[in-house]
């Protein structure tokens, strides 16, 4: 599903945000990407959705080399990936319903179907009663759940989440993670960037750990051994 081959990213000469990152994520996996603040987690996610282009190396996402993908194919790539951004990135002038269904609208899906899908995902995140609210009328936790709903509404093959439980209380965080597991069981590959150690330990999934832009640890095989 995702392959990184010796990927480097830098914003200043000789200062690397990511350095020689290589790993493979298979379809249907659930992975935690962890590391301290500034380790490069968000940068790595940005590279996957081609928000950034790596300075060196190759990145394959769902069979496409996103380092050299034509600009015209970027929208399609992004529509196939659900992303929960750290700062939510909700459109303030649109309601919860409009935010969640925006991508569906650009795909030409009719209103009835958009309503049905929005209702389903908003019910999953417990916000079905706030469809007509605007983001600024919601709490931080509620906005985060809207971001989750938007990320999963189009049944993505890959779900990326950048600190998706950062603003949630433990119970709600557990609900969101349970939701991610449910989506994962349907076959969606899930990559969650977080530094919530308790949650990582509790969920016993594969963990890729970054430190100062380098791949510090990949528990891939270890988790599979433990699970088996």
């Amino acid at each position, binding site marked *: 599903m995702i392959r990184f081959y010796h990927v480097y990213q830098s914003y200043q000469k000789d200062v690397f945000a990511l350095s020689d990152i290589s790993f493979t994520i298979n379809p249907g996996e659930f992975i935690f990407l962890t590391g301290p603040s500034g380790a490069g987690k968000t940068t790595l996610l940005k590279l996957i959705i*081609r928000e950034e282009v790596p300075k060196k190396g190759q990145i394959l996402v769902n069979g496409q080399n996103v380092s050299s993908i034509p600009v015209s194919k970027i929208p399609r790539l992004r529509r196939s990936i659900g992303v929960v951004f750290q700062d939510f990135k909700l459109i303030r*002038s649109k309601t919860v319903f409009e935010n969640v269904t925006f991508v569906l609208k650009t795909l030409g899906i009719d209103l009835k179907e958009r309503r049905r899908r929005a209702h389903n995902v908003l019910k999953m995140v417990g916000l079905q009663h706030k469809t007509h609210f605007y983001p600024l009328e919601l709490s931080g936790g509620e906005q985060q759940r809207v971001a989750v709903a938007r990320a999963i509404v189009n049944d993505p093959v890959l779900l990326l989440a950048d600190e998706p439980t950062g603003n949630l209380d433990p119970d709600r965080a557990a609900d969101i993670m349970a939701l991610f597991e449910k989506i994962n069981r349907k076959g969606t590959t899930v990559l969650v960037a977080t530094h919530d150690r308790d949650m990582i330990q509790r969920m016993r999934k594969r963990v890729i750990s970054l430190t100062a832009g380098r791949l510090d640890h990949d528990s891939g095989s270890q988790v599979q051994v433990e699970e088996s």
Partner: protein
Amino acid sequence: MLQFLYFSLSEAVTSLWRTRILNLLSLGTIMFAMFILGSFMFVGLNLQNLALDWQKQIQFNIFLNDDISEEARAEIQAYLGKSFFVDSFTFLSKDQARARFDEKFAAYEKVTENLEDNPFPASFEVFLLRGTKQQTYTTLKDELKSFAGIEEVYYDEEVFRRLGMFAGFIQMAGWFFGVIVIFSSIFTISNVLKLTFFTRREEVDIMKLVGASRAYIRGPFIVEGVLQGFLGAGAGVFLVYSGYLMVGRFLTGNTSFILGNLEPEFLPMQWVVLILLAGGFSGLLGSLFSLHQFLEEHISYH
């Protein structure tokens, strides 16, 4: 395609409403532009109508000498009666001419009262058949010269020629000013859209991140520009129509006015459609211009 148009239209309408104060600027400019263009077209059209109407049936006067004999007058009358091109004619005696003056220019009644002699000449008012060419009139005029007792044959062709030229000039000026104000509208729309974009910059960034295609990002901006142009032009045409109603009311209420008989004609439907299209096209150019010059780098995926 329909879905795309619906999306662009609904997003554009929402954006127009959200930034309505800002949009009033471009709407006002294009309304003013189209009002100027429409007004010139309206005035030019009606002046031309007037000139054409007057020219359609040539009317001239044969002023007679005061000492013309009865026989000479009868000869002229016989000539006019036989002429193929004369539609109708009436004889106006000196007294009738004076009475008509008194009736038409009541304010000057005292002037004529103080006159011992009647200075108004007797005349024939001649109407040629509709469509008769000016050349025919010239031939008639030349033939009339051979009759005794004629003081002057008068046809104010110069006035009509100048009126026609003036109408043409008004229309030309309309196009000239129209083009200038349309350019200013394009410039205004372009700048207003840039400002609109700044209010929606974050939104555009998010649209890109969730995978909206370039067309879906650009579409609403373009439609918004076209709508601004269209609505502005519509408001401009409405103003011209209001002016037309007011002019009509003024003319019917002032029959003594020189143009009192004129029934103004509003712009033909094709011209109205043309003005609306010009507005929409200005909007389209304005939005394309701002997208090309300024927004492309923000909107494009790179």
